[in-house]
């Protein structure tokens, strides 16, 4: 039955072919092409020239690039922990079957469907020190408005707050889904075991949500290391490059200075950093937690 077996193999291949084609054309090819591009001197008008690792050595001597790495990590460190804790708190507060909770779930998720342009506009109105909501409030109270968009540290916080407001919906939904998986009788057992609300959260809810927490942190880390739109639109990377993120640096190198090879090399560095970080997170947080799944 050799012929039949071979035919079956071909049939199977046909089923995955549409996806495989798209995957190779849209993902694998650009990935490899990017790697090749990063080893060339090339501008937007074509005609590349192989120059080995020159782009990379230039990058690590480029202070602007190194500062963009720092700014990106600072932002990720501001956003990811705060976002995770806030999303969890919201999910805990809204994990009930009341009409009010359903409405608020919708409200908190609604910011996620807005485009980054609108989100940035909204927050510009809030944060701008002269005409913004916060600035006017501060003035009405007789205080000096915080220069959210022109101070090196405050502008990072402006980006962080904007991003948290924009992206809290998805992690909140992930936590809500995780909470729905916890059977109700375990909470009843905890009530009979005299567990306080705090103890119940610490010993029953959080251990059950561990996988969701890891997932949220990994997804958000990968997402926030690629932060771009907010930085470009809210602060333009300023003041003095304080909010120039890695992707913004890549964008400027490619489309302002037309150094495609150089920009691609920076993109490869970012790609490696994200892969390394998320893998490390996964391995360290999941170690020794096999056997926690069932009940």
């Amino acid at each position: 039955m050799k012929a039949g077996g071979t035919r079956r193999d071909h049939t199977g291949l046909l089923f995955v072919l549409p996806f495989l084609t798209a995957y190779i054309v849209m993902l694998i090819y650009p990935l490899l092409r990017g790697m090749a591009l990063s080893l060339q001197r090339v501008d937007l008008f074509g005609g590349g020239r192989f120059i080995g690792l020159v782009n990379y050595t230039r990058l690590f001597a480029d202070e602007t690039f190194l500062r963009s790495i720092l700014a990106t990590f600072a932002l990720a460190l501001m956003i990811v922990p705060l976002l995770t804790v806030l999303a969890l708190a919201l999910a805990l507060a809204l994990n009930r079957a009341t009409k009010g909770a359903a409405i608020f779930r919708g409200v908190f998720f609604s910011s996620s469907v807005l485009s980054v342009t609108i989100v940035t506009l909204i927050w510009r109105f809030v944060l701008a020190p002269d005409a913004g909501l916060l600035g006017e409030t501060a003035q009405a109270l007789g205080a000096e408005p915080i220069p959210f968009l022109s101070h090196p540290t405050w502008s990072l916080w402006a980006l962080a707050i904007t991003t948290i407001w924009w992206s809290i919906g998805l992690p909140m939904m992930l936590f809500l889904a995780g909470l729905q998986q916890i059977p109700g009788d375990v909470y009843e057992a905890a009530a009979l075991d005299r567990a306080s609300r705090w103890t119940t959260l610490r010993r029953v809810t959080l251990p059950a949500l561990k996988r969701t927490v890891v997932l949220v942190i990994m997804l958000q880390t990968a997402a926030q290391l690629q932060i771009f739109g907010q930085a470009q639109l809210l602060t333009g990377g300023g003041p003095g490059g304080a909010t120039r993120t890695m992707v913004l640096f890549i964008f400027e190198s490619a489309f302002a200075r037309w150094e495609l090879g150089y920009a691609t090399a920076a993109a490869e560095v970012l790609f490696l950093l994200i892969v390394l970080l998320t893998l490390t997170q996964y391995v360290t947080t999941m170690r020794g937690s096999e056997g926690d799944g069932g009940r």
Partner: protein
Amino acid sequence: MPLPSLELRDIRKAYGATPVLDGVSLTMEEGEFVAFLGPSGSGKSTLLRIIAGLETLDQGEVLLAGERIDTLPPGDRGVAMVFQHYALYPHMTVRENMAFGLKNAKVPRDEIEARVAEAARVLEIAEQLDKKPNQMSGGQRQRVAIGRAIVKHPKLFLLDEPLSNLDAALRMRTRIELAQLRNRVDAAFIMVTHDQAEAMTLADRIVVMNDRKIQQVGPPMEIYSRPANTFVARFVGSPAMTLLPVTLAEGAGGDYASVTLGDGSVVQTRVPRAGLGTGTLQLGLRPESVRLTADGGSSAKVDLVERLGDRTLLYAHLSDGQAITAEDSGTSAVQVGDTVRLRIDGGSAHLFDADGAGHHAEAQSA
């Protein structure tokens, strides 16, 4: 006179406009094992959860050892519960599962260790103390759930369908173990079940519930032999009691009621005639009260034969179409479709009046 253990006073509960408990009162004695028996939706689980404090009541009082507990949070009531699906904490070891409640109650550490070790010894799970629940079989998890209740030294154990998740062999074994446990601990037990065999074998008294109310409270044999109404008569006992519409035969039988069946045959019961009222009656017959006979009796056609080894059950219908269940010896030669003659033992028969209330033979058959 022993102290009352649990006292329920006129418990009422509704979910919105739907009442689920309608004036339930019950008094348990110290160390008593009571089973709440009833079909799904009878309110038995809700009643158990009200006692545990997992549901609020709309009206009424719950007292344990003389103290009112329905106003206390679940953990302060002196009760422990074994859940139907065990409800173990999946991220804790068996030891932590059992110790959790004691830690929260600020019991000293060495006391906790001693209690956990003792419970683990009694339940034969000492080897499993460092395992997590998902590394254990269903039967072992059940033991952990029971252990978690034991270590609290409660005044009252609440068991919510404790055997329903176990396979048949394990269920029999655990039933015996529960009976032994009950003798070892100084506490009262309430078990919710829809399995009458569990209720009959474990409980001192059975509380039969249906339709939001207690239908009857009594020792297992009393429930079986003197059912308070047609619901209890049909629900307890397997197969269910046969109920036949009958009319009172006037003048015959003296002080005891004599009734006429639909096919015209007359059955002389030992149920006192007084108090039966005037409406239509139903004659209640356990299978063992209906036997085959060579001549006389009523004619019936056999629809189904169930051979159980030690006895044979015959599901038949009488000439007027009424269904009746009879019992024959284990070696019965009766086949489906046979026409047989059945003799009804009126001495062990029950009568139910127009309201469904049961009337039974005097002492002799009780």
